[in-house]
């Protein structure tokens, strides 16, 4: 059950905006476009099913070069 108390708490805690729509059609704003979406589940599910922060196993700056020098943590690496 949605109560005003919990809605108020969530707004204050996370700074999110909660309003009632004019046409009674609710939804969710999840990016800077301001577009109201039907669901957020597509965004959130990945947090629990894949890695929270993914990285490419090969650093991006090395992918397109057959050979390059790269300075990392005071080491000069030759990447061939």
């Amino acid at each position, binding site marked *: *059950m*949605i109560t005003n108390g*919990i*809605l108020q*708490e*969530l707004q*204050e*805690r*996370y*700074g*999110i*905006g*909660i*309003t*009632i*729509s004019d*046409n*009674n*059609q*609710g*939804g*969710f*704003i*999840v*990016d*800077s476009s*301001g577009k*109201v979406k*039907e*669901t*957020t*589940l597509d*965004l*959130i*599910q990945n*947090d*629990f099913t894949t*890695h*929270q*922060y*993914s*990285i490419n*196993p*090969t*650093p991006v700056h090395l992918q397109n070069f057959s050979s390059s020098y790269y300075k*990392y*943590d005071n080491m000069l*690496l030759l990447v061939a």
Partner: protein
Amino acid sequence: MNILGYHGTLSNYAKSILQDGYKFNQKINPEHDHWLGHGIYFYVHYELALWWGRTKSNAFKRKRGIGEGYSVIKSSIQCDKEKILDLDNPIHLDGFFSYYKNKELELKKAGYIIDFTKGLDCQKYSEDNYHRIIRERIRCTYLDFMKHERNYEVVMYTFSKDDPSYANSIHKYYGMANTGLSYKEKQICVTTNDIIIKSEICFSHEEEII
């Protein structure tokens, strides 16, 4: 059920916690580190709490220009099994997703528009960080709804990270992520001081007692 958790923090805060109990911040800044909703956070692993305390201490020094020690508090948490939402348990995770889906429908039907971007300046953050903050806001909002309605006192989950700052950074240059293994951080989020039955400092500054 007894759970042991480690909390890394600045030494000044640690003293205050031992004296008055953990404090629950009502307002959280946009870059908050609340991953499982409102509550006090513990790591299952002592080493991660130590890393977190050190990170906080370094941040404090950068910001204020003066040093501040850090400590790790070991706390015993006692909670009824039915008041624990263990998201590592597939049944519990399924339960959370079902709850989430139903709550979304309920909010939509009631005509609520929830703006998870409010107050966030997208120019201030990298694209990845901007979306991460929004995802965290969403996840925490629904977890807080669920905790509130179902009276959960503890939420646990093991997050994965490929490239945490505490890891030996050279590993990624040798493609260690290709092993299919990643770093894990099991976090415990506790919503009330009532179930934290004992706390003690197990590390402070240079002296390691544990």
